């Protein structure tokens, strides 16, 4: 195993840490409180959302935004500490992938939410990020990867940009859920409290389209950069990645050519993201011996 020079300093733990592997293990354990703090911030946003209807006043916008912003800061600190420890982008196991995905979702929400005045998106985003992160914390997936590859900028670019693309797809999924909720209320004439706080249908559909294009562009860049990593490309990963690319490409083409009605596009965003996340897990499960 290559020497991890990053451990000479702030993360040295005296007698407990003997050798690089132990140092790494110790440092990895130290960053978890940051992730826990981040998860608690998202939990606060979820609780706020759940309590809002009881108060008969649904104003989760600002509180959710602040809670998500705080959660994002803790996530960033976590990824920074772990990345520093690993000496590379922290995407070496499924745990890190999920945390990076949650971070990407929060990042795109913080960038896109206010721009499109989709403040209520926070009420839908926080539960998604909370679930992803809780799964990462609870499931036994934080296993240090047995094979340690030297730092590879192309590989790191490929992995990080692909996960950020997943973040955009996740937000498109969130906007899709909001669209479906709003559309259903308008169709059935049963208007709940949330109806008055959700954005108009046309605004939501415009956000879905833009998020899909953003995600698709990033994912395409990630896919292309994957071919420059230099290492052997596992077939299962290529097939999985292409399947996701084709699925989203088909949605965009269907939207562009008006094959699908807006409601169908919104529903497909939800299906596509669920499938893409499942595939991410499946690929990792199948290719245990290959770093993501």
């Amino acid at each position: 195993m290559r020497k991890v020079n990053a451990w000479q300093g702030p993360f040295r733990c005296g007698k407990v840490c003997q050798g690089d592997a132990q140092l790494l293990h110790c440092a990895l354990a130290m960053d978890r409180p940051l992730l826990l703090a981040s998860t608690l911030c998202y939990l606060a946003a979820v609780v706020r959302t759940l309590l809002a209807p009881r108060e008969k006043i649904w104003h989760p916008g600002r509180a959710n935004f602040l809670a998500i912003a705080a959660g994002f800061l803790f996530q960033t600190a976590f990824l920074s500490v772990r990345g520093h420890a690993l000496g590379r982008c922290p995407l070496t196991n499924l745990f890190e992938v999920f945390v990076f995905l949650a971070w990407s979702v929060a990042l795109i929400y913080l960038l896109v939410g206010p721009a499109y005045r989709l403040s209520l998106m926070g009420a839908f985003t926080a539960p998604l990020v909370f679930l992803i992160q809780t799964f990462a914390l609870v499931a036994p997936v934080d296993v240090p990867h047995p094979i340690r590859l030297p730092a590879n900028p192309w590989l790191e670019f490929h992995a990080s940009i692909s996960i950020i693309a997943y973040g955009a797809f996740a937000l498109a999924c969130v906007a899709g859920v909001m669209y479906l909720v709003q559309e259903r209320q308008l169709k059935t004439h049963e208007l709940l409290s949330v109806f008055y706080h959700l954005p108009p249908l046309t605004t939501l559909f415009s956000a879905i389209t833009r998020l899909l294009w953003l995600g698709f562009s990033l994912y395409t860049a990630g896919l292309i950069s994957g071919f420059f990593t230099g290492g052997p490309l596992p077939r299962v990963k290529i097939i999985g990645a292409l399947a996701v690319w084709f699925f989203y490409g088909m949605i965009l083409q269907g939207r562009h050519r008006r094959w699908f009605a807006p409601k169908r596009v919104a529903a497909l965003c939800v299906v596509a993201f669920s499938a893409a996340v499942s595939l991410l897990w499946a690929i990792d499960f199948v290719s245990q011996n290959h770093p993501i």
Partner: protein
Amino acid sequence: MNLFCIGLSHHTAKVEIRERYALQRSEEALRAQSGCAEALILPTCNRVEVYGAAPAQIATEKIAECLVGGGAVTLQDANAFYRHEKQACVQHLFRVVSGLDSMVIGETEILGQVKKAYANARESGSAGPCLHRLFQRAFRVAKQVRSRTEITRGAVSVGSVAVELAVKIFGDLSERKVLILGAGETSERTARALSSRGVSDIRVSNRSRERAENLAALVRGRAVGFDQWPRECGEIDILVASTSANEPLLTPALLSPLLRERSDRPLFIIDLAVPRDVAPEVNEMEGVYLYDIDSLQSIAQQSLALRRQQIAAGEEIIAAHVSDFVMRLTGVGETAAAQIPIPGALDQTSLRVSEL
């Protein structure tokens, strides 16, 4: 200083009685006749109230006589008057200005009306330190009740529900195209409501071309021949149907080929006609949102019910302000009593101080 409110409203008097007292009397005359140090008349379509401050008790009948212009007040009219003093007066005004005492709970028009009445009293010099503080606080209370509760949420009339739904589907309405089918009174009201929300492209179609042109002129739209309206459905975003046809004019069979031309734009149909102009099956079609008069009325009722639920939250805010205001007023009243009975003596400086 005795702070009081004497008046009648939709709760206590029918319109026949209210209208007798609604004629605007001058506050100066009222003060001169009744002996009030300060007076403010609040005349709206649902209430006529006098808020006043006086060193001695003023009889309700005296105020009623002043309002009616010196004429006789019948027993029936006298029974319709209510009187609130001190704390009850403060509470009543806070409830009125917050829309809790309105016929349509949570309506915001009352705030503008109270502000106008206050401005008139200020201008005439009839509002002194007591009323200034009272009304300034009342405006603060109204703002808090509106922002901290959902008392104003949701539309409560058919026209405003239709406009609110249109906004929830399309967002900005200024670029939307509207077709009004039938040029009756209901269509006119809805067309005006849409026009007030920025819709500039309004087309009117009616069996009588002349009536279509008249309505089109009123809402700055254009008339369309009655045989051409189905073709317009491919272009428009909102259809308001209110004809007297006995059979549905718009059916899925008629709309289906037109929807293909519309790409993915939603179509919002407001069917105000009885019998209905649009077959209910149209609502099953992708991207079409059909609301008939019953659906709109039901939403208006729901909003009203929600507003009623919010009354308790509003009352809590008001109660806190009432006790605080009354506590402070006791101090002001003592100092003001020595200075007040100088009609018209209020200048801009004292007004600014009282506003602070």
